[in-house]
């Protein structure tokens, strides 16, 4: 441990002195961007879009590699096991980085990675069916207090997933009794809300697409960009201490030299403004929200800490 630390420190010192020289040496070969999910999803689309745009910045090819499975931990494990030279990085979501390691089964810990760039947060809300009598947060809170254990909310990830942990945290903070119903994917979840099998859900709402998943309030700091959501409050605006950040961003092994991180950060940051990436943000109703290595590190640390507390409280970990 001390040895690696010393090594890292030496590296950092070296890279500081010869920073400029090293900077031109990187990257000299194609970079692998690991996506811990299958091709075709939201994360994959953004990873490919950003990779394409960042190639021009770096003057090197960026190869997107899909390594799905194991709750997205397989992809991160492969980045952790790769040479920490900055040529293998991951485009990750929050779950494999700040939830899965807490169960203690992954080969890596959250702190085994260092952040390069947070690109966006996925907005999530507590939703009801469009025609529900519950119009907003106050309605909901009153109903939930009057009917303890009656508000069933679904998540698409199951017990122990980000949506479950976040909503349980909400229940604790508000001191209300709500019940989690796990689903195996967002299509089945949406159908259950629309069919009235469950009262609500923690997911991305879709009334901007004329859908039937209507938000009561957002648990994320941001809302989807469509104007239809402008009047829906966030938990922060309501003064509830249960904000959840489902970030998506690029990370690398903790031992990658700082100057390489900064080169990668510059390139990916610039790629976010490329037209093809902007188009993705618009298409998926996501607000671009870049955060550099330091800011992203704080977000990760805070999310990990809050998850650990809640998971302990609801008995997911000891």
């Amino acid at each position, binding site marked *: 441990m001390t040895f690696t630390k010393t090594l890292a420190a030496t590296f950092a010192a070296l890279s500081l002195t010869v920073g400029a020289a090293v900077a031109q040496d990187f990257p000299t070969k194609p970079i692998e961007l690991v996506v811990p999910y*299958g*091709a*075709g999803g939201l994360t994959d*689309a953004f990873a490919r879009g950003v990779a394409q745009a960042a190639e021009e910045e770096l003057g090197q090819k960026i190869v997107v*590699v*899909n*390594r*799905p*499975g*194991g*709750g997205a*931990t*397989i992809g991160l*494990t492969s980045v952790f096991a790769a040479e920490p030279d900055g040529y293998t990085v991951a485009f990750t979501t929050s779950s494999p980085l700040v939830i899965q390691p807490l169960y203690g*089964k*992954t080969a890596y810990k959250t702190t085994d990675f260092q952040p390069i760039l947070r690109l966006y947060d996925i907005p999530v809300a507590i939703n009801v069916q469009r025609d529900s009598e519950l119009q907003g947060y106050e309605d909901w809170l009153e109903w939930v207090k009057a009917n303890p*254990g009656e508000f*069933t909310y679904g998540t698409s990830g*199951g*017990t*122990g*997933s980000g949506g479950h942990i976040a909503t349980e945290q909400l229940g604790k903070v508000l001191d209300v009794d709500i*019940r989690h*119903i*796990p*689903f*195996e*994917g967002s*299509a*089945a979840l*949406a*159908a*259950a809300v*629309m*069919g009235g*099998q*469950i009262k609500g859900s923690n997911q991305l709402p*879709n009334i901007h*697409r*004329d*859908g*039937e998943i209507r938000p009561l309030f957002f648990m994320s700091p941001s809302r989807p960009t469509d104007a239809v959501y402008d009047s829906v409050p966030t938990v922060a605006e309501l003064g509830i201490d249960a904000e959840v950040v489902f970030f998506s961003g690029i990370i690398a092994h903790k031992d990658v030299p700082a100057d390489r991180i900064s080169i990668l950060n510059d390139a990916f940051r610039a790629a976010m403004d490329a037209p093809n990436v902007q188009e993705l943000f618009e*298409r998926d109703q996501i607000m671009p929200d870049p955060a550099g290595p330091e800011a992203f590190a704080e977000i990760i640390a805070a999310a990990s800490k809050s998850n650990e507390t809640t998971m302990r409280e609801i008995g*997911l970990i000891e």
Partner: protein
Amino acid sequence: MDLLANIDFMSVVSAFGAIMLGLFVGMLFGALPGLGLIIGVTLLLPLSYAMGPVESILMLLACYQGAEYGGSISAIVLGIPGTAMAAPIVLDGREMAKTTSPGKALAFSLYGSTFGGIFGGLVLIFFAEPVARFALGLADPEFFLLGIIGLLAVATFGAKDFVKAMISVFLGLIAGTIGIDLFTGMPRLTGGYFEVYEGLNLISVAVGLFALSEVFMMLGNRMNKAYSFDASDMKISLTMKEFWASLKAMITGSAIGSFMGVLPGVGSTVSGWLAYSGAKGLSKTPEKFGKGSPEGIAAPDAANNATVGGALLPFIALGIPGSASIAIIAGAFIIHGITPGPQMIRNDPGLIQAIFLGFMATTVCMFFMGKALTTVFARALITPNSFLVPAILISSMIGIYSSGGHFFDLWVALGLGVAAYIMRRLDYSVAAFVLAMVLAPIIEKSFRRALVISEGDYMTFIDRTYSQVIMMAIVATLAYAVVKSVQGRRRLREPTAAESRSE
């Protein structure tokens, strides 16, 4: 005016080209073991950036249709279902190809697929909204009961040894529980391997059980053996009489397929099996099932292709993708800025009409393309095994690896292949294993979730109207089966004398 006519002509031509491309890729990927529908659709998706919305959507739908049929080609010709959906077709398709005529077997499959495709399309065009609404009313208690009906289908496979069939079912059910438990978040039977946290990879399971075990069977026989048939036996066509005789099975299969397709997450892998047992139950000659019955081919094939229209239905009507493939095809809609759901029907009726028309055209094109291409595929039958074995192995390995990018899945397939080879030599049913494995998650999750929602009240399974109807269907099926078997035994005693005289 002239210009308009020109544009229409050009767009019809380009749509036709897109459909043909989609069909070809679909059939090819469907027929190659391991490489399936999802890989085909994913490969074609980037092309859709460069195409118009109608063309790209039709191309992907054509690929979906083509793959559903393509999987049956290899099921019939090699005894290896090209896709997991085509597994039920092996039972009778392989038998008919070996004993009677491969051309006829492929024809029943192609006619069934086409019929199912058209049926699913018509349901989609005329009943999208009401059927989607109806399906939303179905919930976990019903899914659980449907899963049980699916398991009962095992009884129709005509297993020689009931106890062995039950052992296969139980092993399949156990295999279906591998992975993270949705309700507790705990890993089950994973042996510490992260690769199986999301369950066994269905592609490596299907390849292992069917393709690899068949390869081992081939290796156990003479390697240079090849079947020989007259050219006339390779002709892919049906007489009117044959078509009429299998029409009932096609209708049964289509109805089951389009219905199952509508239910999100339950659909396509199960519908073929249900169609097979449904057609057997309604058949005048159920004793022929498993021995090369035309109905046993036509029904699951019709169901598989009817699933396409069915799965598209909740997507177009409500914006909920009914299957994994539709979820990928949804990407093409979004790329072109089309938002699926009720507003699409309202805002863009022209586009919907074009998709509907194109969807029907896809099915018709599949029929002709199938007729032309299948003859080529069927040549595999007269190819010696020494050529087939390496080709099947390469396709299988590429397919498995590209589906998840894990070498681990190749080992799973090899292990299951060896196990399936032993199972087949000892007369255990591989089909029963697979069916149980795909049904296990549906049965377990819906059972547990129904109880979680009802807070442990078992009445939830019987106090809903929908579940009562399904419950009655289950009881009726069981009663019917009992009566049939009693009758069958009685009949068996009498005509055996007559049969032995004629032989």
